């Protein structure tokens, strides 16, 4: 076999291996390369996708932070300082994780306003709105729990101003006259890194599936 024939065999080898087992070529052609969409879609329709990108940035930077963050009341703030000053590029990862929620909230809110003003929540897309509005609420709760984790002054005000009222003080935190217990802090940590993100992933999955099923809405 000549050299170009051998090269072709190598380059198609991996692709052919996957295609033989999973028939990915048909799926990719149906959903990407051969797919046709209505012409003239507005760029504002991309805001939902950008919110997803912001969420993935948060998940990615959050995973890096988990390696160094200490979920303990006494050590949390010191661990954040360590991430910022001692870990290589830690300052960048931590700052991106702190800044991106502002953009994520803005994008989700703008996406929601567009849906509201264009009436895209009407039949047959009612559950799109329900899942999307739930995602907005969960995003706000996620940002709130995230602001508590560095255990700094902002966290103190957060837990006093809002945490009391939502019962976190009485039930989850063992709050006692301005002091949050370690068990409560761990509960907030578990909510922020696992419970709420997982719930958001499930709801997002339903949201995207429903959008795929009902399709892009017609213009007004």
């Amino acid at each position, binding site marked *: 076999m000549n050299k170009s024939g051998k090269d072709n065999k190598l380059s198609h080898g991996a692709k052919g291996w996957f295609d033989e087992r999973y028939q990915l070529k048909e799926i990719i052609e149906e*959903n*990407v*390369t051969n*797919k*046709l*969409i*209505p*012409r003239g*879609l507005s*760029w504002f329709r991309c805001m939902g996708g*950008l919110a997803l*990108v912001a969420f993935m*940035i948060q998940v990615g930077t959050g995973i890096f932070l988990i390696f160094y963050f200490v979920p303990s009341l006494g050590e949390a*703030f010191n661990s*954040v300082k360590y991430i910022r000053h001692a870990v290589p590029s830690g300052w*960048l990862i*931590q700052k*991106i994780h702190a*800044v*991106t*929620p*502002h*953009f994520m909230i803005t*994008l989700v809110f703008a996406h929601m306003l567009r849906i*509201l*003003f*264009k*009436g*895209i*929540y*009407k039949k047959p*897309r*009612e559950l799109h*709105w*329900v899942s999307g*509005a*739930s995602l907005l*609420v969960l995003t*706000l709760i996620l*940002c*709130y729990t995230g*602001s508590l984790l560095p255990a*700094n*002054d*902002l966290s*103190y*005000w*957060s837990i006093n*101003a*809002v945490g*009391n*009222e*939502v*019962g976190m003080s009485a039930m989850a935190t063992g709050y006692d006259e301005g002091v949050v217990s370690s068990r409560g802090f761990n509960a907030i940590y578990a909510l922020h890194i696992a419970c709420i993100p997982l719930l958001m992933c499930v709801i997002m999955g339903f949201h995207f599936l429903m959008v*795929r*099923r*009902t*399709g*892009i809405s017609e213009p*007004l």
Partner: protein
Amino acid sequence: MVDYRIGRSEDELEPFFPNEILRHTLLTFLLINAIMLGVLFLPESYYNSVDGSASSENSIPWFLLPFYFVSDLIDNKALYILVISLYTVAFIGVPFLDRNSERSLWKKPVFLSIVLVNLLMILALGIFKYIQ
């Protein structure tokens, strides 16, 4: 999944790849640029106060300001939770509350007024808390 070719001529359609993929890719890069500008120029909020007392109330994230202001207005914890829960349920249930078949918000003056009043109220609550 929906086939957009039904009811449309060839002129009214465009390929998903690369057109829509390119739009999303360009906007993603713009978002990353905006985030990097925020990383460089947005103020820090993680520092503790110098004198040991909690004095950074003004560093509350802007999207939580309305909740903080409402919690200041309502002393009763149970009432606060009830108000926020009812508002959240009403917000999530908008498609079932708005029974008008008309899609455009501009053609529904009552619902438009409710939406604008709520948006202005949220904005005002946030501004009041920030000024406070």
